[in-house]
């Protein structure tokens, strides 16, 4: 074969033949052989060092072209040349007469110098974690590294790396999938890891993070979990910190500054932090080694928990260098969601998926005939369970009331939801760990914050929106692998509430058009939009998220205030996507109902829904055990429930620094028992004055809450539309309590009935400065009982509290018949 053909072959077997050609008497063959060797090395990465002595020789050949081509080939071998060899080549400069060759010779020497110098200084591809480096336990590790080549990794081997794992994390070894993930990450790859809760996904990023040079950024939406992971890492001696909205700004800034100085190996941040100006400026100076996306299913709209702030994380991942390690982890992703995630973070992502079977779970669905039956069943059920557990309810109000019900039945329970302050929530999380309570009653939304490995039972009182939601929500229980009871209290009518939410989740097309039109005129913030559109905050947020997603608007920081801008050239709104999503949501809800109605193995149902390939019967669920359960509440329980509702007086939380308004009480929740119906009839359908039963209940609430407190005067909220109802109510209460009543409170401004205002902002603005008292001086130093029929957002009562305080009233205590659930807050 000719030298040319040998070069094109791409085969290392060509080398000896080419070496022979290098020694030929014909210049052209020497030249072509050198060229072929260059090609083999450059295009096919074939090692040509065997040819080195011959090429060196030809660098001094008589024929200029031979010298030229040989020099070019030698350049491929520069890392392997010695100082003497370089000097030899360089000395040819004296005899060289061809300009081009002179240039080549100088270039050879210069490049060789550069290579030599960089061997001493930092190189980007150093071997990993030197296994024999000394370091003390509980300390951050050794030689800082960057991602490495497969060969380096192979050289060290799993065993050596597991030794490091033992030292740094006190763990004996990796599961196979953990090793697969970690070795990919160490090589700078992108990985999507789908493993059930309790598997040990965190180790897959904590170990590499601890060994990389620089800081790993972990995006995580769960504040409680962030905190727990940081604490655990610090106990191991690994520097980690988290930034989130529950912490003071000062603290967050302090952490960011330390991160800039390289103090942390891991930095956890909530996805919303990307909107923060300070963060955006700071992140440019942090030495970043890896990006981790926790709860990665939030990326996908097809997933059960899409969060718009994850959109930016995806965009970020798409800007990162290809050889920069990225790890996305989740416990719940259907095949479709996983595909979507993969599509979004790059098709070169490696997907590693474990099976989702939780073999310590005993799943059951209890078919009840009423909400009362559920209340009864849960007491019996909990009393049979060892250890501590968790109960999910649909709304905040339900969480509170249910917790009260359990306590009424002598079960240690406490409620937990987003309406509590961060301190209150933290206290409950800590109490949970120390087994202070038998049962925590939480909304689904916050249940993810619970991080107790030995939750022995978990109850759902309402069906979740899909089997994926359900799998995730029960996921937190029984992480220790011990037998765990998972119960769902089911009534066929339960599907109406989630169906309702799916219906209203996306507002009409007109609303979208209105929002777009307003933003086209001027940049608007969330509050501006609430004012202009009279929507609920959640609805506006959904609209904005969709518009950002379709690149019709963008989110901008104007002096640290977040506003929305219209993008020039934006496409028209695509409502097909919404329709598709709605259909999908209804379908998923249907599947959840199927789960409740199925007579087959429940674990198999869940796992195959979520994409597990081979699923077996669990043998532990109620269906597999042949124990189908229907439950009806007995008379005893009905009595008990009635007694409870009689004592359940909702508290009105309305104190504020600027007024002497105290907390107050309502006789009942608007939605519970028949109170709401009665009030509605009286107010809006002309049913006459409030019946005695309501008055009596209100007075009982008064006694239970205010006890022996003395009031000087009763005032009532002047109504807008419902006539003298509240006046008569106040008169009757004044009569029964023997406290004087004044009719001197009037409404000044012409205001709209509060009822028509959807959101709190508008309600508040509607009542501002709306009231007047005709003889202000007589209120000085008085304690006032303030009466109204319904307490909704509290705007009216709070404004009155402020106003009356400004006139000198020393205390104002509210008393109402019913407290609404405020829009079914979740």
């Amino acid at each position: 074969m000719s030298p040319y053909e040998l070069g094109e072959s791409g085969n290392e077997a060509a080398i000896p033949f080419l070496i022979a050609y290098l020694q030929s008497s014909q210049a052209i063959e020497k030249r072509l052989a050198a060229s072929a060797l260059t090609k083999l090395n450059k295009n096919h990465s074939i090692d040509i060092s065997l040819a080195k002595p011959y090429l060196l020789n030809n660098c001094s050949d008589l024929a200029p072209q031979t010298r030229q081509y040989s020099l070019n080939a030698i350049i491929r071998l520069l890392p392997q040349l010695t100082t003497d060899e370089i000097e030899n080549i360089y000395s040819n400069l004296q005899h060289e007469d061809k300009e081009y060759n002179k240039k080549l010779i100088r270039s050879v020497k210069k490049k060789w110098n550069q290579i030599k110098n960089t061997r001493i200084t930092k190189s980007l591809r150093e071997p990993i974690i030197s296994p024999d480096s000394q370091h003390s336990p509980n300390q951050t590790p050794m030689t800082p590294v960057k991602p490495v080549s497969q060969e380096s990794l192979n050289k060290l081997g799993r065993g050596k790396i597991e030794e490091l794992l033992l030292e740094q994390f006190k763990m004996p070894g990796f599961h196979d999938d953990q090793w697969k993930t970690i070795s990919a990450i160490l090589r700078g790859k992108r990985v999507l890891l789908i493993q059930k809760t309790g598997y040990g996904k965190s180790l897959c990023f904590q170990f590499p993070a601890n060994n990389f040079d620089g800081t790993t950024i972990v995006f995580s939406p769960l504040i409680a979990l962030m905190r727990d992971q940081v604490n655990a890492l610090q106990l191991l001696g690994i520097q980690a910190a988290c930034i989130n909205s529950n912490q003071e700004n000062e603290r967050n800034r302090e952490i960011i500054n330390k991160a800039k100085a390289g103090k942390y190996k891991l930095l956890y941040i909530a996805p919303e932090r990307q909107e923060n100006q300070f963060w955006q400026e700071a992140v440019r100076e942090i030495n970043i080694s890896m990006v981790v996306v926790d709860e990665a299913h939030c990326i996908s709209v097809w997933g059960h928990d899409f969060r718009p702030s994850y959109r930016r994380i995806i965009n970020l991942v798409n800007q990162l260098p290809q050889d920069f390690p990225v790890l996305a982890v989740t416990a719940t992703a259907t095949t479709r969601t996983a595909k979507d995630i993969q599509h979004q973070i790059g098709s070169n992502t490696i997907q590693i998926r474990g099976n989702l079977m939780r073999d310590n779970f005993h799943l059951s669905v209890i078919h009840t005939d009423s909400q009362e039956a559920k209340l009864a069943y849960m007491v019996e059920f909990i009393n049979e369970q060892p250890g501590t557990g968790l109960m999910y309810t649909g709304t905040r109000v339900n969480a509170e009331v249910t917790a009260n019900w359990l306590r009424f039945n002598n079960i240690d329970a406490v409620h937990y939801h987003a309406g509590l302050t961060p301190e209150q929530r933290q206290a409950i999380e800590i109490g949970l760990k120390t087994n202070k309570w038998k049962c925590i009653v939480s909304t689904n939304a916050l249940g993810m914050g619970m991080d107790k490995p030995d939750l022995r039972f978990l109850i759902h009182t309402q069906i979740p929106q899909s089997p994926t939601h359900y799998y995730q929500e029960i996921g937190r229980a029984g992480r220790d692998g011990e037998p765990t009871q998972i119960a769902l209290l089911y009534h066929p009518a339960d599907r109406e509430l989630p169906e309702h939410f799916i219906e209203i989740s996306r507002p009409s097309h007109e609303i979208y058009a209105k929002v777009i039109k307003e933003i086209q005129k001027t940049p608007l913030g969330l509050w501006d939009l609430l004012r202009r559109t009279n929507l609920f905050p959640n609805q506006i947020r959904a609209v904005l998220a969709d518009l950002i997603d379709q690149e019709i608007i963008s989110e901008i920081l104007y002096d640290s205030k977040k506003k929305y801008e219209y993008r020039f050239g934006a496409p028209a709104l695509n409502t097909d996507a919404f329709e598709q999503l709605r259909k999908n949501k209804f379908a998923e809800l249907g599947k959840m109902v199927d789960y409740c109605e199925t007579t087959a193995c429940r674990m198999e149902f869940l796992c195959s829904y979520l994409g597990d390939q081979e699923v077996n019967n669990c043998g532990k669920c109620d269906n597999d055990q042949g124990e189908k359960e229907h439950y009806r509440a007995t008379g005893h329980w009905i009595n008990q429930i009635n007694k409870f509702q009689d004592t359940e007086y909702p508290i009105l939380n309305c104190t504020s620094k600027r007024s002497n308004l105290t907390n107050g009480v309502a006789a009942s929740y608007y939605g519970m028992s028949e109170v709401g119906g009665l009030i509605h009839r009286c107010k809006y359908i002309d049913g006459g004055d409030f019946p005695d039963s309501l008055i009596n209940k209100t007075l009982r609430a008064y006694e239970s809450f205010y006890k022996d407190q003395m009031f000087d005067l009763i005032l009532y909220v002047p109504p807008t539309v419902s006539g003298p109802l509240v006046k008569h109510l106040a008169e009757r209460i004044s009569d029964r309590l023997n406290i004087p009543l004044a009719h001197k409170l009037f409404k000044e401004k012409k205001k709209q009935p509060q009822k028509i205002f959807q959101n709190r902002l508008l309600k508040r603005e509607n009542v501002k400065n709306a009231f007047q008292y005709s003889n202000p001086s007589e209120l000085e130093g008085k304690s006032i009982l303030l009466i109204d029929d319904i307490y909704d957002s509290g705007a009216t009562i709070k404004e009155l509290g402020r106003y009356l305080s400004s006139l000198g009233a020393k205390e104002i205590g509210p008393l109402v018949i019913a407290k609404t659930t405020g829009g079914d807050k979740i």
Partner: protein
Amino acid sequence: MNNINDFAYWMAISHLKNWRKERVNSFLYNQLFSNNLTLIDFFEMELNDWILEFEFSDNELNDLTTARETLPNLSFQAENLLSQGFQIIPINSPNYPSLLLANLTLTHAPSLIYLKGNQNLLQEPTTAIVGSRKASEEALQFTKSIAKLETQQNRIIVSGFAKGVDRTALDAALVVNGKSIIVLPQGILTFSNGYKYYYEQITHGDVLVLSTFPPEAPWSIGYAMARNPIIYGLAEKIFVAESSESGGTWSGVIDGLKKGRTIFVRKPRTNENNANDLLIVMGSKPVDKFGKIDSAPKLEQFQSRITDLLRDKQLTLEEIKTEFNNDINLDKLEQYLSKIKCIYKNTGQKYSIKNNNVVQGQFPKF
């Protein structure tokens, strides 16, 4: 692989200190693109391969290594820019303005452009109107008039947003529902007041904001000077309302004339205190406020400069060129010298002042 973006890489390569545009572009085109390599390919290579495959000086290697280490950080910055509605356009993108590339060539064209607003304006016919920050009333009137006239011909007004002529041109165009490209002397993220003020025009596609500097870079004199060639590069027609004999506007015109651009300068009236007529002598075309070329402009400043020069000596054409301004074209100089009444050329090809006693090589009469 469809969502992968290389903006972070472009940002890394385009703002290297000490790398002139020519160096960056020649690296991109002659060493990467001609070998079918992308920037991403380049940054994924090992350091040794950089040394073997390319000719970099030691400093350049350092710069590139450091740049590579900042890639993740630049990714955050790029994502932030895109999220806020900015566009990033590298030099090899089909959306890169071809006129800019043609005018500046790879020697001077910026390898990366940041934009906010209607990109399509870059494809429309453009007119730049430039001038001093402290411009005379006359100059501002001229600016308004030209801005209006050009807008009526559906041309886009390009200006630098400086006080004075630039802002007047922009606002005058917008008042008659015209469109404009603002070339910033600072980073694209530092213009928040401007974005607020021109929000409607930007969202309606009438204003495009453009910057070639690092996104967070604040205003500096260097940047103010550096963006003038960009303005010229983006424009088909260039009008100068007023210039002094030094500073940004002056250097911009001189630079443009050197590059062979046609530049229209407002013809000065008698006794104006600026260097407009000098620019005319240097080669710009004098125009009135309707944009009409005037063949007989007044050149008082020029005249007084020359008479000062020749007060007590005689100079050849070349010598006058050296004294006056080395960039001037000799033919033009000769042409304008011939227009000055009190100057004439003797047989020795030397110029001198007629009313001087030094005439025709004779000695002065006492």
